[in-house]
């Protein structure tokens, strides 16, 4: 650079890092130095091009769920108080009571174990569907098209509804395998959160909705009319319960 001002000063001015007085001094210099002025225009053009090209790369969905899975389940919603001696004693007493109750309720527990295992598999499948490259069997918001796709694949008439008016936009459907059997999966989206609804035939008695969470994902499960449904997402539980109501009233 032939002028008296260093290249660093030009960079500083361009980046808005030059203080008031030095900036004014540099601006005076700019009026006479064609070289610095040209360079400033070039820097502006370069910056415009960088910004227009949208090079910023936000975190991928798969990194998000990996981090979600690592961090969310360990973060309690409400801050726990400091562990005091009587807390431990109360906990010990509670454990004793639980042990007695468990011994009496063995058969019931198996149901809950089964539920937890099932939810685990469903959450895994849901996470898998969030990874880049995972494909939809039928990508459409046309209820009839999705219904007939499932009919052809599973010989099963499913309650396929687009609840876009209620904020749950139908995205399509696919098949998955949970516990060794084929299940139908309807994909919805709410405020950018993907929601999967797993459906399969069952002979078990009807149940009301049960909710749970696993690895940062929420699920709601219920059985109605020889069908079992399980809704999974990282969105609010209230949203999933709303979707449950909508599906419930359409079946």
């Amino acid at each position, binding site marked *: 650079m032939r002028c008296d001002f260093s290249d660093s000063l030009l960079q*500083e001015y361009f980046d808005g*890092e030059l203080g008031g007085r030095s900036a004014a001094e540099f601006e005076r210099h700019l009026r006479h130095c064609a070289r610095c002025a040209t360079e400033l225009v070039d820097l502006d053009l370069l910056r415009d091009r960088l910004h227009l090209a949208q090079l910023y*790369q936000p*975190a*991928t969905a*798969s*990194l998000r769920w990996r981090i979600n899975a690592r*961090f969310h389940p360990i973060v309690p919603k409400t801050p726990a108080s400091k562990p005091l001696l009587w807390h431990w004693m109360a906990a010990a007493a509670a454990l004793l009571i639980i042990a007695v109750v468990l011994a009496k309720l063995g058969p019931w527990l198996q149901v809950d174990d089964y539920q937890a295992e099932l939810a685990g598999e469903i959450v895994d499948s849901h996470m898998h569907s969030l990874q880049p490259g995972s494909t939809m069997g039928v990508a459409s918001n046309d209820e009839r098209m999705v219904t007939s796709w499932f009919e052809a694949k599973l010989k099963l008439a499913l309650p396929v509804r687009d609840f876009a008016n209620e904020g749950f936009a139908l995205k399509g459907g696919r098949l998955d395998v949970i516990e060794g059997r084929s299940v139908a999966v309807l994909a919805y989206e709410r405020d950018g959160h993907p929601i999967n609804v797993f459906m399969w035939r069952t002979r078990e008695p009807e149940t009301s909705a049960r909710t749970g969470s696993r690895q940062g994902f929420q699920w709601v499960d219920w059985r109605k009319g020889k069908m079992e449904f399980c809704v999974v997402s990282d969105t609010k539980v209230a949203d999933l319960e709303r979707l449950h109501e909508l599906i419930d009233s359409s079946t």
Partner: protein
Amino acid sequence: MSELSVEDRERFEQLVLPHVDAAFNLARWLLRGRSDAEDVAQEALLRACRFFGGFNGGDARAWLLQIVRNTCYTWLEKNRPMELSMEFDEELHQQTSATPETLAIIADDHKRLTLALETLPPRFREVLVLRELEGCSYKEIAAITSIPIGTVMSSLSRARRQLYSALTNSSQGACS
């Protein structure tokens, strides 16, 4: 993670986790690949969580990006040591940045800029990414990269010059 108290875990979630995009963006540009960047960004977040006790308040993004950068360099040293030794080799950079074959393939500006940025030596690439994509101040860049502010300025200046000349070469090549 289990070493953190409940309060620290909540603080970590509030202060650090919102900067996952920044962490991934820096890792992606330093490592020049999405899947490596995912692994390294995740590793960096786990490290950040482990060292969160040592975070004394202040700028959580700069603190996290410092860890991301160190994790990236450790990864590069282990997996692609050649890339780090090539830094500041401007002649080599100019040779690799614009061959007619690569230029013929590169049609749009996004691809052309991506290639130009990726062929910059890592030390230049990181200051440009932090300044232009992440919007960091000189002070923040100095904190993240552990290099003096004066060096931040001169690196930025040289990085911009190289990027500019790579782009000018490439557009001339594309026309001919």
